[in-house]
């Protein structure tokens, strides 16, 4: 069973524990600047919204890559960057409609969410379950349940 990250912004408090967990897993440091999941604050509206790669099936980044440095992990469905092959051309960052793959100056290659190899850290770090890792076919299950309860 494939799983997906499910994000429910209305539960997010903007604490950035997810950004720390992500950066720590990826770089060994607590460094929100290097996180592949980002939390956006809409101050005037009083809203916090986490956002990251949704692992498109026909991934724009993967198709755009001229050196085939982005590959599918069959076990997780994640589109992963092969850092040894990536040449840092950044074409994928242009191709991605969502902005969730980005160039990293320190490493000179791109980085994106890889679902931590199937055991993602961000949902574990989220204190309010705004980020969960659920059955990819049923990301709407809890919302359906909520509406079902009202019917």
């Amino acid at each position, binding site marked *: 069973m494939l799983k997906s990250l499910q994000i429910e912004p209305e539960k997010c*408090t*903007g*604490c*950035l*524990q997810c950004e*720390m*967990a992500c*950066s*720590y897993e990826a*770089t*060994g*440091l*607590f*460094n*929100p*600047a*290097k996180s592949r999941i980002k939390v956006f604050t809409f*101050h*005037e*509206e*009083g*809203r*916090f919204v986490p956002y990251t790669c949704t692992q498109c099936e026909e991934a724009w980044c993967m198709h755009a890559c001229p050196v085939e440095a982005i590959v599918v992990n069959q076990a997780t469905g994640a589109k992963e960057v092969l850092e040894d092959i990536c040449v840092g051309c950044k074409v994928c960052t242009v191709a991605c409609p969502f902005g969730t793959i980005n160039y990293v100056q320190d490493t000179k290659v791109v980085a994106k969410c890889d679902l931590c190899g199937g055991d993602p850290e961000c949902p574990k*770090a989220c*204190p*309010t379950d705004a980020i969960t890792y659920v059955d990819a076919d049923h990301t709407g299950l809890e919302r359906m349940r909520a509406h079902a309860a009202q019917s």
Partner: protein
Amino acid sequence: MAWTKNVLRINLTDGSISKEPLNMEWANDYLGQRGLATKYLVEEIDPNCDALGPDNKLIMTTGPLTGTMVSTGGRYSVVTKSPLTGVLACSNSGGFIGNELKNAGWDMIIFEGKSPKPVYLYIENEKAELVPADEIWGKSVWEADEYLHKKYQDPLLRIAAVGRSAEAGCLYSGIINDLHRAAGRSGVGTVMASKNLKAVAIRGTRGVGNIQDSAAFMKATTEAKKVLAENAVTGEGLPALGTQVLMNVINEMGALPTRNMKEVQFEGAGDISGEAMLEPRESDGKPNLTTNAACFGCTIACGRISTIDRTHFTIENKPEYWGNSGGLEFEAAFALGSDCGVNDMDVMTYAQFLCNEDGYDPISFGCTVAAAMELFELGAITTKETDGIEFKFGSAEALAKAAEWVATGEGFGKDLGLGSKRLCEKYGHPDLSMTVKGQEFPAYDPRGIQGMGLAYATSNRGACHLRGYTVASEVLGIPVKTDPLETDGKAELVKAFQDGSAVVDSAGICAFTTFAWSMEDIAPQIDAACEGDWSVDKCMEVGERIWNLERDFNNAAGMTAADDTLPKRLLKDAANVGPAKGRVNDLGKMLPEYYELRGWTADGKLTDETRARFGL
């Protein structure tokens, strides 16, 4: 480790900037943030210097846990000599800038001297530069924030700034970061403005590491987060109602300061409570509270994000205040509400927005307005001073005007910016000032919560709830319930809370964790992150050392045992209603025992033995 071990020193007089290694011997004795920065300050300034002169220094400092995955690990503090109290100021703030400073690779910034012209400090990791602040001097914090974000085209830039109140010399101006978080108390913003320093803008992308034992740290912080999540206060009460969860509780026990502390219960408490913030309003069907919000790394998320009713008289013609911003917390709600006799949530939220927009402490502001209202009702202040406004208890109009005046220092705002002590002296009624060492009281009347009287009287920064929050024990039963009307055992309780708080404030975490965490939860997290021994005993020893260091400085700055007291009203006039009816605060029963437990002389000075014990 966990410290970056780098100190950024900025000489504002000559514009020189240097990097120096953190004194690790001191770090071992004082941990970080509050303790360690105080050690630096004490070593570097004359205790008798003019707080607003170039000889005072101002330190922005993080703790070893700031910027790590520990819950609430985003705290930073500002340490300096206070212009309000004449003794140490140490103001702690959340938001996001503490983490940013740490991520840029710095444990602390020491500002010294005074810039000949207004400047701001821009930091991008290793790079630090002073930049002329002509475009933002004379502007509010919110305008400065917007200008700097636009100028650097960097939405992730984190900014701390002073507002127009600080520039105008208001003695209780704070430093606002991330638009609505504040190093709020004791006039640290006034000191910053006196140095012609408008703002600090930081971008840090280097990462925080140097964790002594990563596996142990992740295990300890994960377990401690679980403790917070499962605790009724940190897991339920604070996220739902914020610190405002206390309004009705404190009112019911007859300890809610009302009308400049003349009374201990407020008939309008329900109207300004955390519960009331959830009630839909008539005009648009929306409640005052939009959502709760977290500071960096915080798994509690007690922050209030609120709106003001658009039809309210304060903002009906001011669309710039129609959006969400940081709303009422309990300390602000009592000061702007019950202490002024005001039960209008919208005018209070408006005043809170202005406190954030132009950087002044809502506690000191509200209490000063309350004192002015009492002076007005006595006839000592008249409509001549107040621009024709009837400055009476309960007046929403007076509160709104006062907030606007103090924001810019215009008109009567100049007097209100003096704080309660100087205002009451100026108008001939010094006894009406509800202050200790010149700083206004927080939201717990010590007639109804006896231990808090001792905590206020002996606090190293004047009246303050965060220096020894015995409310936890006396009201909430944390860690054990003590009788709020009893004085026996309170000296020991106050000392334990004071020493423990000094550790929390020095680690980089938030005081509110201690509703759930004891030192047994906190010490293992520090110990896993930092080199050296950070057992519970070591932490408490460090806390006690910090307390004594602060006291020693304050004594050297001219404070004496005579300053360890409360206003006459709280010592002589009994509470008129409620469970504490008939009671005054029995400070005299607690203070001598406290001095003895501290190892101080009868006149409140460190004995040679105490000095030797802590290496002071």
